[in-house]
């Protein structure tokens, strides 16, 4: 509309068509509010129950954050994908796949690898991993089948490929010796090192997690791609009809998820000095749990990356709390399951508040 004329001045009837939303009510519609509240609750719970086990300490805090970081990095990408209305059940397998790809590239030819220098090895392994994400994405948009099913296939395919490739080339499924590769020190400084704060060792991966969470939050809330993500998750058809390049967006998000899996794999390969084809098992579910606990709607269109980060933190808190108190680890599953169900109930309530007509 290019005209600059005044509004047709209908003040007396316009007012009654306005619905005011107060500050508190607004806050209550934020997707991450439940996760942040749960985060505080769970922490306080363990701070009381496990106080004698030094739960409130630098060392325990470092341990929690170190557990949360890889899951959190994964959850950033998984949350964006889920807000756009898609799932990636193969992301845990892709971690194992990427780790094996990295190790096969750097392992000397005599040991069955390709004997590449670190730089090219990482680039090639990255491209292979992104191709896995591209495969998922293209299959989802061309078949129009639920990504749940497509990537369930991927869960087996990529795990199987990782194991088979490692075994065929090296006759093993665990590959070590990454620490001896020239250039490892640089990579370690970037991704693997521990930072000492008051005697507790914090992984540098925590900084990556925080940085990626901040970046993804900015993208989601302040860029057009973020607007598209919400739109496509809310209603794919409507978004396409108003000009959102839906297929391009969905494929990109699958590639992004694969990238996050690659980063986690590279961090872990650096930390542990090698790869295991079984690494990353169940991480697809843990990342989905982190996102859902963090307020991401299972059906898409709603959620936040900060919430997913809080979800990952809750996950690690519970894990650490159970471990530290010496309670049987089986209780961990009960706890996580209960939190998941409670979070979904709460988030559903929040969503209905936001959606109610």
């Amino acid at each position, binding site marked *: *509309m*290019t*005209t600059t*004329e005044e*509004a*047709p001045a*209908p*003040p007396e*009837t*316009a*007012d009654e*068509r*306005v*619905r*005011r*939303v107060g500050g508190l009510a*607004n806050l209550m*519609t934020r997707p991450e509010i439940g996760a942040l509240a749960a985060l505080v609750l769970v922490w306080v719970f363990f701070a009381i129950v496990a106080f004698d086990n030094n739960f409130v300490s630098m060392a325990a805090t470092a341990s929690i954050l170190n557990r949360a970081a890889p899951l959190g990095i994964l959850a950033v990408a998984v949350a964006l994908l889920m807000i756009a209305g898609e799932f990636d059940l193969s992301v845990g397998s892709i971690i194992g796949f990427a780790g094996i790809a990295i190790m096969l590239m750097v392992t000397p030819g005599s040991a069955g690898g390709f004997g590449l220098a670190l730089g090219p090895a990482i680039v090639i392994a990255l491209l292979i991993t992104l191709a896995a994400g591209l495969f998922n994405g293209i299959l989802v948009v061309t078949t129009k089948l639920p990504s749940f099913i497509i990537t369930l296939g991927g869960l087996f395919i990529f795990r199987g490929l990782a194991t088979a490739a490692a075994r065929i080339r090296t006759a093993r499924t665990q590959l070590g010796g990454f620490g001896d590769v020239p250039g490892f020190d640089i990579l370690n400084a970037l991704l693997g090192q521990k930072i000492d704060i008051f005697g507790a060792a914090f992984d540098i991966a925590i900084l990556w997690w925080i940085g990626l969470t901040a970046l993804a939050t*900015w993208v989601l809330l*302040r*860029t*057009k791609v*973020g*607007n*598209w993500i*919400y*739109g496509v998750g*809310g*209603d794919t*058809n*409507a*978004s*396409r*009809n*108003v*000009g*959102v*390049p839906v297929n391009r967006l969905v494929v990109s998000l699958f590639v992004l998820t694969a990238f996050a899996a690659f980063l986690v794999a590279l961090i872990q390969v650096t930390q542990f000095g090698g790869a295991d084809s079984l690494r990353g098992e169940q991480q697809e579910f843990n990342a989905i749990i982190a996102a859902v606990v963090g307020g991401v*709607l299972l059906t898409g*269109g*709603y959620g936040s990356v900060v919430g997913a980060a809080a979800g990952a933190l809750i996950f690690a808190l519970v894990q650490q709390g159970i471990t530290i108190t010496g309670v049987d680890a089986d209780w961990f599953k009960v706890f996580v399951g209960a939190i998941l169900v409670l979070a979904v109930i709460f988030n559903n309530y929040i*969503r209905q508040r*936001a*959606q*109610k*007509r």
Partner: protein
Amino acid sequence: MTHNESMTIAPILEVKSISKFFGSVIALHDVSMFVRPGEVTCLLGDNGAGKSTLIKTLAGVHKPTEGEYFFEGKPVDFNSPRDALEHGIATVYQDLAMIPLMSIWRNFFLGSEPTKGVPPLRRFDVSHAKQVTREEMAKMGIDIRNPDQPVGTLSGGERQSVAIARAVYFGAKVLILDEPTAALGVKQAGVVLRYILQAKQRGIGVIFITHNPHHAYPVGDHFVILRRGTIYGDYAKADVPLEQLVSMMAGGADLEALSHELASASRTDTGRAAEELAEAAQAYHATAVEAAEGATQDE
């Protein structure tokens, strides 16, 4: 632009012998229609006649199974609604294409986000988006205090108003409206008709679908009647009196309003469209007159 002048202008958008099949369903068969810049083509027809299918084909949602599509005289082949939007064709879909969980301003600009800054810091210009949303909605006669309100919490008519305001804002060359007044109150319907006239005055080609002859007749320049997926007729306004139009729009009008409208229509000749709009609006409700007079003054 007068009526006579516009008759000689080449169509901005034209389809020739379009057919659209959905599997075994023949939704459209051998349909040709056009709209000229500065003209309003009303697309009329019974439920299921194929109106929405036709405009979705024009908007790039469907690819025609057969037939040709010309925009500004050149053949075009839209692969997505984005292609059509880039040609300046904006559409209000019958289902509105709104995301209930997203705020008004996010919906308003979805797919056409204004940005500021340079890559990689290029970002959605949120304050501009909110301001434009507020202004455009105010022009529709709807005062939104909080553009952050999710669209799902708006009333049906308010939601329809957002969809219309959005299309009017982005429809640089062609504006397609699929039953835009269906859920609207008298005043907002009046505003929409006034919008159509304003768009027409700016030289935009408008395709207007409605089941309401009182809305179609005052603003339309010609009337394309679709029946069971084919063109039944295409009538210039001068050639078709209102009562004939109504009888051709099978099931489109309720008789009481019809006779009311006939009485008011017979008092005027087919004069200037804005005047007729005023007449039609008067027959409805006194408040609609305000809006119509606004349109007259704009000329």
